[in-house]
């Protein structure tokens, strides 16, 4: 038995945001793989819940005519990985989702929860940062749109007001067309583990084997998932060969990971540089760039 007080099973977004506005201490629960564990640990003991587990409008992946890919926040990791739209257009996001936990967790945990609990190790977050995903936040007052790069406020905190709900994750065509991608999860085990360091790279090759656009993001390199914008900027317009040579040093000069029980700061810096290089290599190959 879980130690929570009340639960509202919302059947629509309207019901969910109304239930949140009516109760200041209510917490949103979707897949449950994070919230129920926190309740079990006692961190959220005695809370009230608003369940968005079975709201059809928040679920599934849709491609619209304008080329935008809309990901419902309650889409599970497994559904994301197996979505034909994702497999064809943003396979890197599906592969990143496929590194979370184990099969059962991936059948339960949701992509919206992965970014909304504000955790730095979230496996889909770095790729969504690179994709410049646009989030729709819905409250009783209406909707607003926030770029996922502005979503994070600090460890465990995102810019959701209490009565607001993440209702859409939109990836625009200019942010995935022509890009190749790679996500590398570095962890102690191949499954059922949390990333020691996550590295996501998107690259779009330009004419003559130069880097047209580079997007690089890290998990567990800072309190929240982060973009390595200085590195991105420094390598834009460079040749692929130069970029491959310089990326590790640039990354190590830019990010400031901490020492934790999982790994030291020095170790994280080492693997961040190396994995950035490997991720660029794989992303470049996927994009069909000249070597």
């Amino acid at each position, binding site marked *: 038995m*879980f130690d929570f007080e009340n639960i509202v099973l919302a059947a629509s977004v309207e019901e969910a945001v109304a239930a949140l506005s009516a109760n200041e201490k209510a917490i949103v629960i979707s897949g*449950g*793989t994070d919230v*129920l*564990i926190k309740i079990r640990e006692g961190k959220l003991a005695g809370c009230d819940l608003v*369940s968005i*587990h079975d709201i059809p409008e928040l679920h599934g992946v849709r491609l619209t005519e304008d080329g935008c890919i809309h990901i419902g926040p309650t889409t599970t990791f497994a559904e994301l990985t197996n979505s034909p739209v994702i497999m064809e257009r943003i396979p890197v996001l599906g592969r990143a989702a496929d590194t979370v936990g*184990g099969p*059962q967790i991936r059948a339960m945990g949701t992509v919206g929860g992965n970014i909304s609990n504000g955790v730095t190790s979230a496996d889909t977050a770095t790729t969504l940062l690179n994709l410049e995903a646009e989030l729709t936040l819905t409250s009783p007052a209406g909707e607003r749109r926030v770029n996922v790069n502005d979503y994070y406020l600090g460890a465990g905190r995102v810019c959701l007001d209490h009565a607001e709900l993440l209702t859409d994750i939109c990836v625009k065509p200019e942010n995935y067309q022509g890009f190749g991608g790679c996500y590398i999860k570095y962890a102690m085990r191949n499954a059922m583990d949390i990333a020691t360091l996550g590295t996501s790279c998107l690259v779009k090759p330009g004419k003559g084997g130069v880097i047209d656009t580079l997007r690089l993001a890290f998990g567990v390199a800072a309190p929240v998932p982060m973009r390595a914008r200085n590195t991105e900027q420094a390598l834009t317009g460079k040749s692929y060969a130069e970029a491959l040579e310089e990326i590790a040093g640039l990354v190590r000069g830019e990010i400031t990971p901490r020492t934790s029980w999982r790994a030291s700061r020095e170790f994280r810096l080492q693997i961040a540089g190396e994995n950035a290089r490997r991720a660029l290599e794989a992303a470049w190959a996927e994009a069909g760039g000249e070597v």
Partner: protein
Amino acid sequence: MLQIIKLTVNGKPCEIAVDRRWSLAEALRQALGLTSVKKGCEVGECGACTVLVDGKAVDSCLYLALWAEGKSVVTVEGLKSGDNDLHPIQKAFIEECAVQCGFCTPGLIMSAVEIVGEGRVYSRDELRKLLSGHLCRCTGYENILNAVERAVREING
């Protein structure tokens, strides 16, 4: 606080009274006596509580009983055939000596049911990944892999 939920369990429609704070594992064990569903870690790491919900293998310890309203749940008790014979996956586990203490077995068998249900053959590496949400405290993984490989081969090969 009790609430009545309607769901299908092992092919039979049923109505059960559940505490709103129960996990699905608790509902299956306490309201329906389906004790093949094991409570192990209760935080989604060991996979001993794995059941199928609408055909998908999930950790029933991290799934609220209330969410099962209207859904179809399958546990190991639902695998036996009309003449009370064991399911081919269960037989494969016996043939390959894949059961030691047996605590992880029901969960693994339910994941195997999902895997076999895909209707295709898998490589050893793919099976390792598909079974990675289970812990066997006897560490009998090799024979478990052999059993699932055998079941997949016999049914889909």
